[in-house]
């Protein structure tokens, strides 16, 4: 089927199979491999993208459902060729270890901060609790997000 989708401010018209997930579409059709495939059942959050303003697991969105939607992925975070403050904060706070959870973590954090620019620590934890990380113990990630909310 034909779908129209806006990804990172770029409009795409695509002919797709019915049985793709949004994750398949981003990675395999558009080559946006920043979004990671971790569990494919919505438990690990590595595939988190922002869809119409909300953080969602792209592995749980059937691609045809994304017709007409607006998507942001990790590749869309840079602003005017520069890292966003959130990305910089992740680097400064050692919030990036193996990096496999990082794109999803960033998107969950961005979705939170877009709606709630000054979240409490508890709100930050809840917002990223659907993003598993095995390396960091989360602390430096939470601190990175907190530092952005203080700016």
């Amino acid at each position, binding site marked *: *089927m034909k779908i129209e989708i806006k990804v990172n401010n770029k409009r795409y018209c695509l002919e797709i*199979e*019915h*049985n*793709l*997930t949004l994750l398949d579409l981003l990675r395999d059709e558009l080559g946006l491999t920043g979004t990671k495939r971790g569990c*494919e*059942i*919505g*438990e690990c*959050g590595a595939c*988190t993208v922002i869809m119409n303003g*909300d*953080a*969602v*697991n792209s*592995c*749980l*969105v*059937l691609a*045809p*459902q994304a017709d007409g939607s607006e998507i942001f992925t990790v590749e869309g975070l840079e602003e005017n060729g520069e890292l966003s403050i959130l990305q910089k904060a992740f680097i400064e706070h050692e919030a990036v270890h193996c990096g496999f959870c990082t794109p999803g973590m960033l998107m*969950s954090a961005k*979705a*939170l901060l877009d709606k709630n620019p000054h979240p409490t620590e508890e709100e930050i*934890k*809840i*917002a*990223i*609790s*659907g*993003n*598993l990380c095995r390396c960091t113990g989360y602390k430096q990630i939470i601190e990175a997000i907190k530092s952005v909310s203080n700016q």
Partner: protein
Amino acid sequence: MLPEIKYYKANTVEETVHILAQNKHAIRILAGGTDLLPELRSEKQNRKVIILDISSIKLLNKIEDEGHFIRIGALVKHSQMVESILLGRHAGFLTQASSLVGSAQIRNRGTLGGNICNAAPCADTLPPLVALDAELTLESSSGNRTELLSGFIRGAYKTNRANDEFLTWIRFKKLPEGCRSNFIKLGRREALSIARLQVAACGMIDSNNKICYIRIVPGSTTPNVFRFTEVEEYLLGNEPSERLFSKAGDMVARKMVEITGVRWSTEYKKPVIAALVRRSLQAIFNLKPGVAVK
């Protein structure tokens, strides 16, 4: 990887019933996809699946104030419920339950209708909805019908929904003025957790400090979710007390074992559901400050 899919999309209730009528046998309804996609993924690859995507029916994506009643469209997402002031005011434990579903990402996609129709015994919204005596509207090409949620669920992952029907509205009476409600979810971790046990309860006292209104619905205890009316009756007319609530907890636990028989988990669930029911009642009737159990 998903199996081969034939995809239909309906934008209105009329379109939906029409497509359903034509594909009675094999069609699967897709709303938020948080249960359906993992399910499809685990299925045999060589069978084509027919999917009807109803997620774009705008009509069913709202929460409506109908005076004494509240009506929730089946496509309302958990995150919308969490943010709803109306629900927070008149059915607080339902909001609480939605806030404890999965993760932020799941709550942003998962719908109330999906949670009901999937009928997992551990579904978080079922206990409060049953406590509210929620009524469902199901639509098909032959018209619509209403049914109590408690009757609609026919056991674990089983419902009364006919193949050509779909759930459109969930409707319930607002809790009476002054009624307090509480939802407890006990899981193995603090987020992204499948409930081990739940309790939804609501209640109030009259001017004589006697319990005049009470609903108790445990979750993840029995294949079906229902009000423990015997226990409710036992509580009615009594003054709230620690002893009374402990007794009520024990009654719920006994009743649970009567229904399920002794299972591998009974040794754990029996004392714990008793304690959770007691705590839930304590929280509602202010015997103790709110209990920090999620």
